[in-house]
């Protein structure tokens, strides 16, 4: 099932889809099959290609912190906060701040 979906998303990306969700869903699938590093690299690509797509910052920051890549997680979260603030997306700002807070507490332990 999951590999079938991966193949479908790979095909859409190869066809040059401009829908950021297709790229994001691909990263989500990579994560779900345990390829977290590849998922994070894909999310970094997404924020470059579609800088206004806030879900990628959220998932990217969370994933980086889960992988122990603290500095990259912080950079992703802070970039996401800037984008979310610009689009007046207070919910995402709160969520990103929450992720940062949790990661900082974990790092201090």
């Amino acid at each position, binding site marked *: *099932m*999951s590999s*079938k*979906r991966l193949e*479908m998303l790979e095909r859409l990306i190869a066809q040059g889809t401009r829908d950021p*969700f297709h790229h*994001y*869903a691909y990263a*989500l699938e990579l994560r*779900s099959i345990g390829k977290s590093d590849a998922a994070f690299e894909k999310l970094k690509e997404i924020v470059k290609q579609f800088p206004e*797509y*806030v*879900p990628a910052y*959220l*998932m990217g920051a969370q994933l980086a912190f889960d992988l122990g890549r603290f500095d990259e997680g912080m950079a992703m979260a802070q970039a996401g906060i800037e984008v979310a603030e610009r689009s007046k*997306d207070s*919910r*995402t700002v709160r*969520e990103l701040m929450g992720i940062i807070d949790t990661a900082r507490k974990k790092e201090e332990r």
Partner: protein
Amino acid sequence: MPTIRTLIDAQAIAYRVKSLGAAISHAHRGHDLVLISVLKGSFVFAADLVRAIEIPIAVDFLACQSYGAGTETSGVVKITHDLTQPIEGKHVIVVEDIIDTGLTMSYLLSNLETRKPASLEVCALLHKPARSRVKVPIHYLGFTIEDVFVVGYGLDFAERYRNLPYIGVLEEER
């Protein structure tokens, strides 16, 4: 015991719903707009969508039951809860959780058309083109998905899982 695999997470849904709300606000500025949520599946989507729309709107609800064997719909639909207000002369958007065969929506559109709205559009959270039997115009679409059974964000399996904040696929545990 089935497990649920995330297909579309809460962040991606929120982002897309916000875009849909902006598109509707842009297209219907100055219109007498009514959003009709088709129960039960679209109630979560409709609740988020109306809050993403920045123009005045009215909201109404419609519930229907489609007849068919098992999960296959026949296209024969009975309205079990009708609108509370007339829609004549108003701009109407029907909000549906998922369009697969298109039979139910096709019936609903024919029915609503007889009530003489100024315009009639469809906003669907999900579209499953692999199961399409009749073509239905979808003016505002959240996501196109493959032929999988989805739950969450208002969609159920035997009345369960509607409260999940994301859309997931029911899978049998291996």
